């Protein structure tokens, strides 16, 4: 067996440990959840105040939902790697866990985090923003689900890249934007179709693009991660 290749059972246990470590750490500190929730509440409140009683077009509101989700992700999802760097535990993880286990464990944690935060964001947005109406719920539900997976996948590998940079706070959204542009355009378009009441099949193109995006990002990230992680 070549070095670094653990048996599948051991690798799964290792992935689970990385995920549970981050999960328990988050339950004890609530650092990422607090940052994300405060960002979501503050941003929705600002949108609410800026719109006042005038409202905005449905297209603009669909786009704004994803602006909130994108920047909320930028404020919290890099924590998973930045936290290890700040606490000096990157070496401990490098020493004990195979790189693939670290990547997939962190990806799983970010996926759970972003799915939960997106659910809260959508709920608050639908409750408080007048004029935001979803007519085809199935399109919207699949869009949010695929969008969350794609967001978690892209933000995990970008967080690993920027974690060791001195300017990581500003670098994260700047580096993320071009990488996430295809994802953002697809979810905004699919959300527009959901609010217009399109048939489910009409959003097939966006769903195919999102699934392709997820596969490409996850596969290429898992291949590149060892090089990012080791040095």
């Amino acid at each position, binding site marked *: 067996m070549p070095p670094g290749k653990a048996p599948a*059972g051991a690798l799964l246990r*290792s992935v689970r440990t990385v995920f549970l470590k981050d999960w328990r750490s988050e339950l004890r500190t609530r650092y990422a959840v607090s940052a994300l929730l405060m960002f979501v509440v503050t941003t929705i409140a600002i949108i609410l105040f800026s719109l006042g009683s005038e409202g905005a077009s449905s297209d603009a509101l669909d786009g704004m939902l994803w602006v909130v989700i994108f920047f909320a992700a930028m404020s919290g999802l890099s924590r998973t790697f930045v936290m290890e760097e700040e606490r000096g535990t990157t070496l401990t*993880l490098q020493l004990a866990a195979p790189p693939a286990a670290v990547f997939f464990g962190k990806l799983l944690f970010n996926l759970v985090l972003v799915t939960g935060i997106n659910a809260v964001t959508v709920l608050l947005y639908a409750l408080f923003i007048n004029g935001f109406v979803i007519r085809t719920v199935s399109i919207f539900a699949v869009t949010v689900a695929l969008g969350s997976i794609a967001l978690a996948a892209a933000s995990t590998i970008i967080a690993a890249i920027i974690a060791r940079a001195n300017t990581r706070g500003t670098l994260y959204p700047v580096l993320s934007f071009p990488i996430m542009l295809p994802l953002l355009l697809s979810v905004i378009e699919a959300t527009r179709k959901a609010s217009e009441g399109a048939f489910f099949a009409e959003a097939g193109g966006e769903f195919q693009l999102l699934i392709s995006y997820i596969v490409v990002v996850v596969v290429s990230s898992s291949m590149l991660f060892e090089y990012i992680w080791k040095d």
Partner: protein
Amino acid sequence: MSGRVRLDGRELRREFDRRTVFRDVAFSVAAGETLLVTGRNGSGKSTLVRIICGVLTPSAGSVALESGAGRAADPHMYAGLVAPYLQMFEEFSPMENLGLGAGLRGMPFDARRAAGLLERVGLSGRLHDPVRTFSSGMKQRVKYAFALLHDPPLLVLDEPTANLDEEGIALARSVMAEQRQRGILVVATNDLADAAAYERSVDLDASR
């Protein structure tokens, strides 16, 4: 397994930002032997330690850790490290840290063995307290338990007695003596009190 373990470093060079830290470093250590790494501050002792542990890639050359029959060994399973710059997960207790150490390696966690190890390093009364409440010497003791949990055939100690009191230093010496019987011991230090006990050595001041 540990009886046949072997560590070979060939023509190792490491650069940071075009600055060469060391070059042409070579060593060969078999089970039962110890390697002493010495050098001034900034000579690259910790860099070489990281390369030996498989967490840093050399700019040139290679390190091969063989588990026997010419098979390359997985450093995650074969190496244990104690170093001042290695940090435990401080929001967790020593027992939880050892549980994480086993889980990260994909191994089942033996709580009784972990408790025994923590008692051996002198932490019997603090098994479930968060590591962030510990002194630097107590954290160093947790690192010893974390490094020994998986019985590593290769144990790497960077400044092994850092932050330790007399009792802790005696513990470090007993761990080193045991490792000499069990596999390969690598020690990076400038404390040459026991220099005669090392069969192999690398002086990084001579490799710049």
